């Protein structure tokens, strides 16, 4: 099956700045794909390269197998949900949703019907006559989603769509988006800087840094088997043990990642550490530890005996939980 989106050695340079620097990528049809990275890592530029708002300075972007080199945004089979939603303030909600159909030359009655159906799909029935300025942030986001989906794109691009929503709404929308994607079977490409969001929603995640993909894989791969210190560090608050420490403790030769929840307090064996701080988080307590001069954190579930700040403890972990990395980037 042809890939929904394919990047072949794609570059986007602005003079000296290499926003995207040699990205190879293949997104399968029907996949929920997340591009994860800090700001300035090139993930949004990659999304804009798919939409056609940017043109690559090198390499090639293909959508459904067709090279997009000279295809302007208005002829690409993709639609975008913008970070700021970009709803047209002079049109009401229905005309916003029907905008693409109006441009495509559809008659007033069918496009009205299609817009109302799309609004129903995003759980905003009866909102057609309102102006975007009369809606809340979450509602605007749904309108933006309906406006893109009504075009029945091959690929839906989402640029940090949940970034402006508050936590509760964001969590609800994550589930809804996921369910919507399953139901429609459309390829979703999703840009975010929130690792939790990427891991919980996506089938596959690409972690970006400095214009390159550091690692691409399933959320489990990214979380449990980071291939580079950057990934371990960026995806959640993993403990990163530098090579000196792993060598000194006789664990291995390269850097290693250890999830805070994998660390346990043991009565004997393990490694000596000193508790330098405690933070109560509800279901668990986060311990700040000094392991042989190296700072690390541990999440101790509720119910365990908590050591006092400043006390000496012994810590351990299951051998499988320590992930050794080959690269020392």
């Amino acid at each position, binding site marked *: 099956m042809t890939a929904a989106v394919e990047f072949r050695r794609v570059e986007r340079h602005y003079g000296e700045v290499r926003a995207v620097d040699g990205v190879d990528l293949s997104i399968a049809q029907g996949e929920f794909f997340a591009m994860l990275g800090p700001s300035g890592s090139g993930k949004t530029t990659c999304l804009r390269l798919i*939409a*056609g*708002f940017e043109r690559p300075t090198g390499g090639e972007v293909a959508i459904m197998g067709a090279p997009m080199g000279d295809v*302007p*945004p*208005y*002829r690409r089979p*993709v*639609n*975008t949900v*913008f*970070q*700021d939603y*970009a*709803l*047209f*303030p*002079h049109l009401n909600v229905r005309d916003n949703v029907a*905008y*693409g159909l*109006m*441009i*495509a030359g559809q008659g007033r009655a069918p496009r009205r019907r299609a817009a109302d159906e799309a609004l129903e799909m995003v759980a905003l029935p009866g909102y057609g006559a309102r102006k975007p300025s009369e809606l809340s942030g979450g509602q605007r986001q749904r309108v933006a989603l309906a*406006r*893109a989906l009504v*075009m029945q794109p091959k690929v839906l691009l989402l640029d940090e769509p949940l970034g402006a929503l508050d936590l509760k709404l964001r969590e609800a929308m994550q589930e809804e988006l996921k369910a919507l994607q399953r139901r429609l079977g459309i390829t979703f490409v999703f840009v975010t800087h929130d690792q939790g969001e990427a891991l919980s929603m996506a089938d596959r995640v690409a972690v970006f840094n400095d214009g390159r993909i550091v690692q691409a894989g399933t959320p489990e791969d990214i979380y449990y088997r980071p291939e580079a210190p950057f990934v371990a560090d960026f995806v959640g608050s993993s403990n990163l043990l530098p090579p000196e420490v792993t060598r000194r403790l006789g664990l291995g030769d390269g850097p290693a990642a250890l999830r805070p929840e994998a660390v346990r307090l043991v009565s004997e064996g393990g490694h000596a550490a000193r508790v330098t701080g405690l933070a109560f988080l509800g279901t668990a307590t986060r311990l700040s530890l000094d392991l042989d001069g190296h700072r690390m954190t541990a999440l101790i579930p509720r119910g365990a005996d908590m050591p006092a700040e400043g006390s000496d403890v012994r810590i351990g972990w299951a051998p499988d939980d320590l992930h050794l990395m080959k690269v020392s980037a």
Partner: protein
Amino acid sequence: MTSADTSPASPVTAPDAATRLSDILWRRPRLLIALLIGPPLAWLGIVYLGALFALLAQSFFSIDEFSGQIRYELTLSTYAELFRAYNLDIILRTVAMAASVTVAAAIVAFPIAYYAARYATGRWKAIFYLGIMLPLWSSYLVKVYAWKLILAKEGILGWLFETLHLTWLLEAYLAIPGIGGNSLSVSWTGTFLVFLYVWLPFMILPVQAALERVPPSMLEASGDLGARPGQTLRHVLIPLALPGIIAGSIFTFSLTLGDYIVPQIVGTSARMIGQAVYQYQGTAGNIPLAAAFAVVPILIMAVYLWIAKRKGAFDAL
């Protein structure tokens, strides 16, 4: 700590005179607003509106055709005079000129404003503002006379057409009745060009301000939904820039309606409203008719704004 006799020092420092004044204003924010807008409001209310009402009152008097004296009785006869063919001509000619200047200014200003709002940054933005504002620094009379030289028969434009062997084209154009004439400087087209030039900054600046507020993502969204750039212009950019265009058109339209200097220096002998007002209140001594003429642009602008509002031109504000 047994110092029961020394009261603790107040955490608030003692105010001096300026601070005390600030304190008074801080406690009474309305007083500050009244002080700030009171004088200009008095100026507007008494001097401007007063003059306007005096003008309105004058237009309801009439002139005695034998003695040339003003008859101070309320009548609509002066307004009836406006509808005489030669006066109506003046009004229609002026409105046609103001409308053409406004439309042309909007068309010329839009690309310039668009460039400035979307592409110009840093130094180029400064150059843009300077380029737009610089003509406003020199006297408007100087500019109009400069244009007379440009448009004169032996002037710069005539020379340019001759050099390009296009004199025939210019002559063919000048032969068109109504807009042509002996030379550009004594034609309707000449007046139009000078008006367009002198009022253009008043159109560019508000349009630029309106376009500046259109987020780039709005245009990208339109393209993303399949609209070609031309369709985006029509369905998104112009509707969103409309309040700016209307604001600019208020300037260009009303300034053209009331001007009496440009048509006097460049153009035909046919008069415009401004010239009529100037002559009736001066040499002819017919203050009531001059006042009635002066009311016409006010009415036209009121109707224009009313229509603009009804058409939703300010919805995007």
